[in-house]
Structure formats: C-alpha cells, structure tokens
C-alpha cells in the first residue's frame, strides 16, 4: 500500500500523565502575568528568564544523557513539554532552537569537548542558539549555499551572508552551514557545519531584517573574513549536507507546526462566550476535530522518534497539514466575529488577531516551504 504509515502513538503512561500535570502547574506559575497578546507570540516569544527557569526545573535537554546535563527522559515526554509550552503561549524563543535541533546535532555529531562545552549550558537554559542555513541566493535550495570557510592553520576564515536568522541579535551561537571546499556547482559536496559564537567572532556583523509586522526577529549575518577556531567544526568536514538534513528532521517534526495560532482559538472561544450561535458551535467543533487529529499525528511522529525510526515523511505531512490549519484560523475567526485587527489595540482580541494575521504567512515558509514539503511527500509516494 502506498499510504504513509503513522503508527498509533504510545498511550500516556502514569509518568507522562504526572509530568503533564506537574508541568501545567509550572507554566501557570511562570506565565501568570503573560497577556494574551504576548502569548500569541507563541514560539517566537523570547525570554531568557523563562528559559533559565525551564532549565533549572529540568525541562530542557530532556532526552539527553545525564552526563551532559540532560535528564534521560523519553522523546515522548519531551513532546509533552513542548506541546504544553506552545498551547500556553510560553516564551520559548531563547531555548527553542538549541533544545530542538542544535543540541541534538551537537550530541549526534559533536566532539567530546563540544558536548561538554555546550550541552550542559543549553540544558540549564543559559545558551541560546539560532539557525545558520538560508542565504540570499539559497533559500529552499540549500545546496546552493555560497558561504565559504577556508581552513587557515588553527582557524577557519569565513566569508558570506546568511539571512532569516531568528534572534541572531539575542542568541549566543548558530550552527553555520557553509562550504569548506569547491563551489555552489558542487551542490551538497564539500559542505560543513561550524559552531559560530555570535558575541565574539571578529569579522561577523549582524543587521536586523524587520518583518512585515514591524517586528525584529530576523537578521542578516554577514561574515567578512571572520575568524572561527578550527575546533568549532561540528562533525566532519565535507559531511555538512547529511548533518544539516538530520538537523532539519528535528526541526520539522514538532507540534509548533500546528499550534502557532492556538491563542487566537483560545481568545475566540472567550469572545464567543455567552453568544454561541449554531454557526459558532459548528465551526469550533470542526476546528477542534482538525486540531485533535493533527495532535494525534504529531504524537505518532514523537513515538516514531522515540523508537529511532525515520519519520521525515510523516513530519513533512504534519507540517504541511498543520500549516494549513494554523493559517486557516484567522479566517475562521473572521467568519464568526466582526473585528478589525489592530496591532496596537489595548483590547485583547483585536491585538491577538492582528498578531496572528501578520505572522501566519511565515508558517508555510520557515522550516521548509509548503512547496518543498509537498515535493518530499510526493517523492515518498514514489512519484520521482
């Protein structure tokens, strides 16, 4: 059969049920002053204090070995923490990339010294990472990357430009995808990954890219003969492509792929309170059904990852279907409630709506565009 299988997610164990309850209490306490508008920032809310609290309470690096500051819990338990953070609108931005993909990449490919240097500080919520993949001429086509790192004794000299780097102006490190030999015509051959210290790299300048909402998440990182110690090479020289694909698999699999606009749903329900028409009940019912099924698919992916199965195709499906869902919510809300989106409104609903309207277009772009994902799924179906 050509269906792409999604195994039943593991049933919640007593430990998972207890963890969820304990973590909900932690979030209630941590987020008690967070407004709906702030919660609607979802995974791009950035708060180092919150990330440190997460780390201190043992909720970061959940699946990593204890010797590196991890907690040796299951991928499924980590998934509970992640989905509860997103559903509550916790400001996870300062640890999000590090906990999700940079840390796991270092654990998988890093040297012993790198693991000891980085992982405990990520798990404690101290160290914040960004992503160093896209370039001005290399977005979806990552293999066209131009940024060049030339070995010069004990250092690499890096020249090139990376874009769309969320929080490069705040974060401590990025994992840079670059070319250590050859030219862009060599595609994925000759590529490598370097750990870049964003605060202490001579020759690196970081400039903001303001998004259409007027918000500063994105940055341009410009490397001009920037000097990077050679021991900051992650994994093997020339193996960058396989490593970056592995990193992307961590990036595409999570519940952030359908929960980005959940705060709008929460506020919509609040606004509908006491005036729930047939139309409201029908619409909310259908949205809830979609959400419940997406969540099941996402939990199935978490279960596969826990069993160390390759879930790249399943993750692409969750992200494709999930982005459609989270992007549909503003219009669904607009069919039920007359309200002008107002980014500066004091009132809750109008400002949440504005934030979601402004940010939702990016959800089918980042982490692999809708078109790239559908290509991956089609290939998985055997069409090319």
């Amino acid at each position, binding site marked *: 059969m050509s*269906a792409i299988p999604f195994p039943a997610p593991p049933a919640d164990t007593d430990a998972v049920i207890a963890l*969820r309850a304990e973590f909900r209490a932690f979030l209630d306490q941590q987020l008690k002053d967070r407004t709906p508008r702030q919660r609607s920032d979802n995974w791009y809310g950035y708060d180092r204090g919150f990330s440190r609290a997460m780390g201190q309470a043992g909720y970061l690096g959940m699946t990593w070995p204890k010797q590196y500051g991890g907690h040796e819990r299951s991928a499924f338990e980590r998934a509970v923490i992640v989905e509860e953070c997103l559903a509550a609108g916790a400001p996870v931005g300062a640890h999000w990339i590090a906990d999700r993909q940079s840390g796991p990449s270092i654990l998988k490919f890093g040297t012993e010294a790198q693991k000891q240097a980085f992982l405990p500080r990520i798990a404690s919520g101290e160290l914040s990472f960004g992503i160093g993949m896209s370039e001005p001429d290399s977005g979806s086509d990552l293999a066209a990357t131009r940024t060049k790192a030339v070995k010069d004794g004990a250092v690499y000299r890096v020249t090139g430009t990376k874009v769309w780097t969320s929080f490069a102006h705040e974060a401590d490190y990025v994992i840079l995808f670059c070319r250590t030999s050859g030219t862009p015509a060599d595609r994925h051959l000759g590529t490598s990954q370097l750990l870049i210290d964003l605060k202490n790299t001579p020759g690196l300048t970081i400039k903001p890219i303001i998004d259409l909402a007027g918000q500063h998440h994105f940055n341009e990182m410009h490397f001009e003969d920037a000097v990077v110690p050679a021991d900051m090479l992650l994994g093997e020289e020339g193996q960058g492509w396989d490593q970056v694909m592995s990193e992307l698999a961590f990036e595409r699999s999570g519940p952030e792929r359908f929960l980005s606009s959940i705060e709008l749903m929460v506020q919509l329900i609040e606004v509908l309170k006491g005036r729930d028409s047939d139309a409201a*009940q029908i619409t*909310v*019912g*259908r949205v809830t059904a*979609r959400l*419940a099924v997406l969540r099941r698919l996402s939990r199935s992916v978490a279960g596969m990852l826990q069993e160390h199965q390759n879930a790249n195709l399943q993750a692409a499906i969750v992200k494709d*279907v999930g982005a459609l869902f989270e992007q549909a919510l503003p219009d669904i809300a607009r069919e039920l409630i007359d309200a002008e989106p107002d980014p500066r409104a004091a009132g809750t609903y109008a400002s949440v709506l504005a934030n979601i309207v402004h940010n939702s277009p990016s959800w089918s772009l980042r982490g692999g565009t809708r078109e790239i994902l559908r290509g991956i799924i089609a290939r998985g179906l055997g*069409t090319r």
Partner: protein
Amino acid sequence: MLAEMITRLFERSLDNAAQTAAREGQWLPALWTEVEEMGLPLALLTEDQGGFGLSFAEAGETLRLLGSHAMPLPVAETMAANQLFAAAGLALAEGPAGLARADDLTLSNGRLTGTVARVAWGEQLDCLALAVGDKLYRVPRSGWTVAEAGTSANFHPRPSLAIDWAIDAEAALPWCPLASGATVRAFQIAGALEAALEMTLNHTGTRVQFGKPLQKNQVVQHELAKLAGELACATAAADLAGEALARHDVLGVAAGTLRAREAATAGAAIATQMHGAIGFTREHRLHLYTTALWAWRDEFGGQVSWAKLLGSAALAAGGPGYWPMVTAL
C-alpha cells in the same frame, strides 16, 4: 492473517458484476454467506463473547478493508451491532444487522411504533440494533415494514422503516449506536481513501500527456501529496474515534468522525480531479470509492450534529479550558 483472508475473499467475490448488482438494489446472498463463514459479523467481539479478540489495530485494519474494497453490504453495521448486542447482553444477529437511534418512537403497552429513517439494506436485515432514549432494542425483521424507499449516494437501498413491534428484547444502552456507526464509517472512509490514493498514483503514473506521465508534473505531485495528507488525517481520525468509542467518550468519536468526513470530501475531490474525465465515469473503479465517500460522510449523524456536539463542549470549556479538553480527546 485475517486481513489476507479478507482480501482474498473480496478480490474473488466482490467483482464488478457484484458491485453492479448491489447498485441495482440486489442483495448478494453468496457474498454474505462467505462473509458469515469467515466470521466477520463477530469480528469486533472479545473471545469471551465468542469473537476473535482482535487487537485494536487488527480491528481497524478489518474495517478499513471494508472501505478499500468498497464493500456494498452492511458488514460494518453488523459488526458494530453485534458488539452492542454483546455488551448489552442481547442475542447476536443471525444475519445482516442495522444500527439506528430514533428518540421519537412511541412506546406504549409494550409496543414500539414509529419510523426509523434510512437504514442500509433495511429490507434484507435480520435485525436492528435500535436505541431509544437510554434503552437498546433488538428489533427482529418481523418488527418493521418499509415505510419509504431511499437510496444512498453510492446507490444502495436505504429505506426508512415503519416499526411496529411488541418489545421482547431490550437492555440498558451500553453506548450510542450512532457513535458506533460513525466510528466504523471513519475506518471505511480511511480505507476508501487508501484505495483512491493507490488508484490515483497508478493513473497519474501511467497516463501520458504532453509526452510524459502526469505524475512528472509538479502541480500533480503536489495534489498527490495533499491526498496523502488527507489519508493520513482520515486514518488517524478513525483511530482516534475507535479509541474514544472503546472508553465510551462521545466527544472523541465526534472529533474523529468529523475529521474523517472532511478528509472524505477533500480526498474524493483530489482523486477525481487527478483522474480527469475517466474518474467521472462508471468505466473506472474510482467511482465506487468516490460515491461511497460521498455517502458515508453524511451517515450516522450528520456533520452538523456532530460538529455542534463537539463545538458546544469546546465553548463550554472556555478559553482556559480549551487545551485541556483537546488533550483529553
């Protein structure tokens, strides 16, 4: 094992002639006998109840096979009815059975009268698992006449039944027959979408236009990817409904059935479009699946009723209670 036996049986006995006859409203006695000999009507029963004690996954696969072979007879209904009868302590069906809920029937002097709307193959059934209020009745064939003919969107008989029956078999209702029916339909929808995807991959892989198979066009590939996404959602939705039914959670059933119905709509549209004109004919088998999807998505409670049930619960949970409600589904 069971799946292989079922597949062999359906491939042998459920051919185009059988499908055509069923669309003419003709019962398929030979096929039904084979279905009974295989024990399928008891497939959802535990071993204690005289069933196979199938695992959840095996039961789901069996139900999906009914969809992926476009089974025209009420096998899924009979399986679900027997599961209800067994749970309620009533006698099992001795032939095909129907599932219905009708709260507006009249009950007086030990007699049940009134109309039950649109029951698949109503004339041919042995009995009906009928819920009225909090009671489950096992109504035998002698307890009804056909009130009005009806036909499903895939052209099978769906008459409304005039019940007039002296009650001799009743029990407390274990769970709602509509929840059972909606759940088995969700699995059938997933099965039908599996078959539709398979056919669509075949067709677009072999049909050459402009010098290349349709499938080599990116725009076609993206539609296939969307179809695979709808199939994934339908399959997960059916599993969600099935797990919810097992714990008698009607909200979980609502979530599962609603998303499966949505997938039926979207999936049937993509599969037909990707087949081009041949998909709109009876010459190609796709129509067996698309018409079934268009029938099943509106059976055992309409989409509106299920959505209102789930939506009103979500609204009652309120903003802060919404996510905990979702995680409980």
